[in-house]
């Protein structure tokens, strides 16, 4: 029993999250829920670079889009299976994030972010015009056949619920992997880079290498999310490469709390849900998004989870241990 309890303790937040995700399609329209999962994965990946390593990137849409197009091309032109296409998309995104990361890693802050943005734009415009014959240009990549998974057992992806649970399985595994990755000593290194890179370098670590590694991992998950997006949509929209998609990752991460683990997922949930409900009512919801951004920055820069965490820390310092306190501690990370 002891071992199980240990595991339960360490992973309680993840269990809670999985529980919520399992129940989500009962409460929200299924396509919305699927979208939340996909963008959540994207944002979680993004947060590895931003929240944990401190690397701001304005071009992550490049990796999301590469994953999406990679999978799309595999489906369309090579009749690949679902698993191969996911792999292709993720691999493509990881490959490019490795290269771009390696090229840009020496630049600081703003320059880094803008450089990544430049690459992102390059991919976008490449897909728009010169590579139109492959990518479908403005219309996006269409002509993807109806999908289903055959191994290890048959899943009909045309059915929204099956699709949701398929995506959920992939996202859940990714979350577990990410969690292990970030909780490991290597994860601490990442946070060290965020806090004080010079000091880490003085300790003898090759921070550039670590940063590139972190960036590639971030790109991997972004690409995986993109590939899932293709499976979900049935085609690849051009704007998966657009800088607005990069900004969306940023917004969701910010909304949920930069540097918290589940923040981006929560942020994705809130954002996508709002987008779906509000765009049904209001035609021009971009003001709301922009306004939300502005409001968040001014008032709640730590995001939802970040603010909760902050409040709980303050709370913890003034009150003595009570049942309430222990309950809060149980919820706190």
């Amino acid at each position, binding site marked *: 029993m002891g071992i199980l309890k240990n595991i339960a303790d360490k992973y309680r937040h993840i269990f809670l999250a999985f529980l919520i995700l399992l129940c989500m399609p009962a409460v929200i329209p299924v396509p919305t829920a699927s979208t939340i999962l996909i963008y959540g994965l994207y944002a979680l990946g993004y947060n590895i670079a931003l929240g944990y390593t401190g690397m701001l990137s304005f071009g992550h849409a490049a990796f999301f889009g590469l994953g999406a197009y990679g999978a799309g091309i595999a489906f369309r032109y090579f009749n690949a299976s679902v698993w191969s296409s996911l792999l292709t998309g993720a691999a493509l995104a990881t490959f490019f994030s490795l290269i771009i990361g390696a090229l840009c890693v020496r630049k600081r802050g703003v320059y880094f972010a803008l450089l990544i943005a430049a690459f992102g734009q390059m991919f976008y415009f490449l897909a728009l015009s010169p590579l139109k014959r492959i990518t479908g240009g403005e219309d996006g990549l269409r002509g993807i056949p109806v999908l289903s998974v055959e191994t290890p057992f048959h899943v009909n992806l045309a059915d929204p619920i099956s699709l949701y649970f398929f995506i959920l399985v992939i996202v859940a595994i990714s979350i577990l992997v990410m969690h292990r990755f970030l909780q490991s000593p290597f994860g601490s290194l990442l946070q060290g880079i965020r806090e004080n890179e010079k000091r880490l370098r003085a300790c003898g670590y090759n921070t550039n290498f670590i940063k590139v590694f972190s960036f590639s991992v971030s790109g991997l998950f972004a690409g995986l999310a993109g590939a899932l997006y293709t499976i979900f949509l049935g085609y690849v929209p051009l704007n998966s490469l657009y800088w607005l998609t990069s900004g969306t990752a940023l917004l969701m991460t910010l909304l949920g709390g930069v540097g918290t683990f589940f923040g981006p997922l929560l942020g994705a949930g809130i954002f996508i849900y709002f987008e779906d409900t509000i765009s049904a009512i209001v035609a021009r919801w971009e*003001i709301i998004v*922009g*306004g939300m951004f502005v409001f968040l920055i001014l008032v709640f820069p730590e995001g939802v989870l970040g603010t909760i965490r902050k409040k709980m820390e303050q709370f913890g310092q003034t009150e003595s241990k009570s049942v309430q306190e222990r309950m809060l501690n149980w919820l706190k990370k």
Partner: protein
Amino acid sequence: MQVILGLALGAIFILLASGLSMIYGLMDVVNFAHGAFYMLGAYAIYTLNRFLGNFGLGVAFSVIIVALMGSVVELTLLRPLYKRNNPLYPLLLTFGLALAIPDIIKIIYGLVGKSIQYPESLMGSFLLGTLVIPKYRVFVIIFTFTILIALWLFLKKSDLGMILRASTRDKEMVDILGVSVPKVMTAGFTMGIALAALGGSIAAPMVAVEPDMGVNIIMQSFVVTVIGGLGSLGGAIIGGIIIGQVVSLTSLLAGAYADVAIYFAMATILLLRPRGLFGEIGRE
């Protein structure tokens, strides 16, 4: 002829890039909303043109109005963020503005692009041998050149200009010497926005005036600014000229790759010379 077009395009880039550079140099803020103000300048001239009928006056008023909007933004939204000491926040805020402002315009003016006629005196073209050179483009080039000279004189010779330059180098020192730094920042930001609005107003007859016109130009302006070096006015000028030519020539030779080319150029230059052509070391 392409060279002239490239120069005219470059002129607009220069106006935007100088503003961006100034704002970054002064406040360490990357103004993502710069394109939005450019767009506001264009819409302002569109609106005023109908009322005033005089293009020159229209431009002047457009710039003033949009610049005032800029100061309001700085005072209400950006200033609270300075004390947080993290350049990320103002950047993200301007990003949010870049999303929100075009949408507001869409509500007011609708989605369809507008167009403005060239002012009477500047319609038509010159004939230079076999070359047909549009008069308006030449005007843009000459006008921008004049503005740049005025700007340079202002920065070099006037007191306020000196304070601005000093604040770019060392804000704390300027503060210690008794100058109100917040006011300087507001002034600098406003000037940067004014330049963007000016760019938008004079670009208006040349391009389609639509709510999203700022979106593409902001990225291109970043390219110019970064190539020239954030914080350097001279760099912005050179960068503008280069990029203007790059865009113009690649449009001619390999249309589809025109957009890709700029970003490729930016990536290349940044990788080879991290601070841009004229940026100051230590700003990276």
